[in-house]
């Protein structure tokens, strides 16, 4: 203890105590009623919120005679506009996940928790829920008062209306989610007639409960205590990352405006200690303590501060998007000189080009060849050797097609079993058994290469797929 006391000067310890004094962590005992203010970032937030309209409206887009984007799990096929993706193509999903994981990393490294602040469903749905709340119950003061007030008819009426609308939003959220996985119009038909299937009903129910509880009650507590991404993104931020930052150089020491004091005589910094930045914060943090885990970088405090600065006639930007480095040294490292940006971009490019390659080479038909193992070969009466193969034809086209097969291999081979071609069902694997016969004289090795090629045509387009296999004869 003596050592410790010697090492840390008393003044520093006092600072630590002072800091821990206002190092307040809200664990839900205090309900956050954030004030809503207009402004540049608030407007941007509406735009980023409306990104989620895609989620609600997407399922009603049509393509040809089906839903444009449909994740058809029972039939194991994903339709994305013109493309149909079958389980065989799922390696692309890995690249897609990689792409979004790195996108999250690069965006966070450059501009902080943009996902959390502007796009995350928790933020957006909470924003919509509190917006509805304000419509019925009024601003933060009125809401606090109403919460504390005894239950009157008026209170019950207001609360009922709010919760009913919340539940409606939750219901639409659930239906919209399920509509990506089954035809949206059929789903609504089933819902109206109370005939929705077990899976749909369970999922809609789960989404109603989840949305209502998370956006209506848990709110910022989900970001603080439930969400792993909040923590993961925290460690992706470095000193070069631009974030909503309080300019303590300009702002401190903060102090209230004194009446009749002339601007020249002012000894305090630009911060007027009006607490508006705290009042508007949806997670209830004080940005003036610097970047912290509760901050989702939604930038609403910037709007609040700018509005006040304008009112008191001081320059705006006391709270602004700025890196810690920029604040301390006055200049930031440009993007192209940051190694992380380059590494992230390289991975993004790799993942994206993989997906583009995958999508552009999505074969319309695909062939797999299984050589029969028992028996490996059969001798025929003329002494020739016959091998049996099972061709597995995957048809990703939207119609059944006729498949023609040719085989190339040892001289004099004859293939039987698909003389007139065969029908391959769409979205399915069709097996076909063929026999290949080769004269003894052509067999120069126990195992010889053979190549099967299938072709089909749809309209004027011709599709083909090849696969190599082996032709096996007697040991020699």
């Amino acid at each position, binding site marked *: 203890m003596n050592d410790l006391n010697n090492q840390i000067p008393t003044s520093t310890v006092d600072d630590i105590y002072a800091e821990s004094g206002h190092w307040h962590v809200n664990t839900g005992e205090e309900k956050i009623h954030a004030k809503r203010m207009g402004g540049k970032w608030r407007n941007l937030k509406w735009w980023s919120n409306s990104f989620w309209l895609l989620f609600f409206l997407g399922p009603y887009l049509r393509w040809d005679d089906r839903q444009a984007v449909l994740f058809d799990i029972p039939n194991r096929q994903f339709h994305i506009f013109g493309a149909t993706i079958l389980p065989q193509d799922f390696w692309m999903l890995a690249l897609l996940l990689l792409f979004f994981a790195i996108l999250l990393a690069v965006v966070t490294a450059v501009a902080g928790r943009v996902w959390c602040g502007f796009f995350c469903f928790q933020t957006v749905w909470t924003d919509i829920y509190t917006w509805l709340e304000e419509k019925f119950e009024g601003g933060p003061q009125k809401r606090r008062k109403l919460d504390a007030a005894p239950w009157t008819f008026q209170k019950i009426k207001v609360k009922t209306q709010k919760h009913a609308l919340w539940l409606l939003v939750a219901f639409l959220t659930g239906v919209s989610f399920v509509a990506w996985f089954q035809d949206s119009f059929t789903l609504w038909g089933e819902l109206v007639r109370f005939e929705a299937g077990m899976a749909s009903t369970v999922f809609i129910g789960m989404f109603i409960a989840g949305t209502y509880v998370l956006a209506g009650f848990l709110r910022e507590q989900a970001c603080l205590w439930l969400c792993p991404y909040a923590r993961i993104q925290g460690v992706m931020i470095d000193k070069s990352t631009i974030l909503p930052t309080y300019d303590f150089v300009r702002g401190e020491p903060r102090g209230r405006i004194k009446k009749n004091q002339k601007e020249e005589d002012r000894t305090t910094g630009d911060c007027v200690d009006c607490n508006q930045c705290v009042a508007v914060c949806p997670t209830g943090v004080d940005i003036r303590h610097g970047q912290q885990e509760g901050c989702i970088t939604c930038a609403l405090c910037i709007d609040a501060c700018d509005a006040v600065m304008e009112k008191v006639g001081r320059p705006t930007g006391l709270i602004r998007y700025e890196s810690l480095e920029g604040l301390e040294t006055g200049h930031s490292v440009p993007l192209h000189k940051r190694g992380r940006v380059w590494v992230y971009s390289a991975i993004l490019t790799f993942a994206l080009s993989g997906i583009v390659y995958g999508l552009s080479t999505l074969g319309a038909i695909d062939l797999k060849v299984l050589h029969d193992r028992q028996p490996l070969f*059969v001798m*025929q009466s003329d002494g020739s050797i016959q091998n049996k193969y099972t061709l597995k034809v995957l048809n990703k086209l939207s119609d059944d097609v006729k498949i023609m097969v040719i085989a190339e291999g040892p001289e004099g081979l004859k293939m039987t079993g698909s003389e007139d071609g065969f029908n391959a069902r769409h979205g399915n694997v069709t097996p076909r058994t063929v026999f290949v016969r080769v004269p003894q004289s052509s067999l120069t090795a126990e195992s010889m290469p053979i190549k099967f090629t299938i072709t089909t045509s749809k309209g004027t387009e011709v599709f083909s797929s090849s696969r190599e296999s082996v032709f096996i004869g007697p040991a020699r």
Partner: protein
Amino acid sequence: MADEKNPFPGENNTGHIWDDNIRELDNPVPRWWMVGFWASVLWWVAYGILYPMIPLGEDSTKGVLGWTQIGEYNDGVAEVQAVRAKFEDQIAGMTPAEILADDGLSGYATASARVLFGDNCQACHGAGGQGGPGYPVLADDNWLYGGTIEAITQTITSGRQGIMVAHGATLSDQEIDTLAQYTVDLSQGQANEAGAELYQTKGCFACHGPDAKGLQIMGSANLTDAIWRFNEDDKLASAKYTIKHGVNAANDPMTREAVMPAFSARLSDNDIKKLAVYVHKLGGGQ
């Protein structure tokens, strides 16, 4: 033990005390345990009412749900049969040739008959119809009794029994050697005039045909092709043995046995049709 003698009064012990201070308490079991216990009892009673439970000699109580194991099994079988019915009903009204010509049905027949083949045919003919020592290959194009779908159906239904007289008593060893060599030469496409002459004079053509290509109507072997019915590894010795002892020859205990049992009594008509399609598609159907 009276309380006044109890050294630990008022703590609800049973009075059983060992080593002065180790005693047995009489505390009630925890409530959660009792709840579980009574729930189990209720479960037992409800189960006994709903399901078969108490043995009564040969029989048992039935339970009001009427559930039985065999009933559940039968339900499962019925479920499978309902799925198969649309195929099986069609197959019942079709000839094997018609089934073979129908892409969808022959696919079903093949998939379904794979199990039947494993149960009934595989032991002799091999899992893939590759045959075995003394048992014909089903995947090649050589058929003793014909490789059409009708002939295969007939073979499965009624069985087959090969027949060849034992010539050990009527032919000299040298003649047998000549004829055996002749068959080997035939299968390899080589001329053997002495053998050809003996083949004619000894009447072999009566069964194997004037061109030695066999007669399917009798099930006699084609001697000119590359396929050896009994022993491929030593063709000459195999031919000598067969000529000397015959096939299924009643008077020769060393004769070769070649019997295919009839399956009409064991398999349903539908199963036989499916099997015929399966065998026809093994590689050699004609």
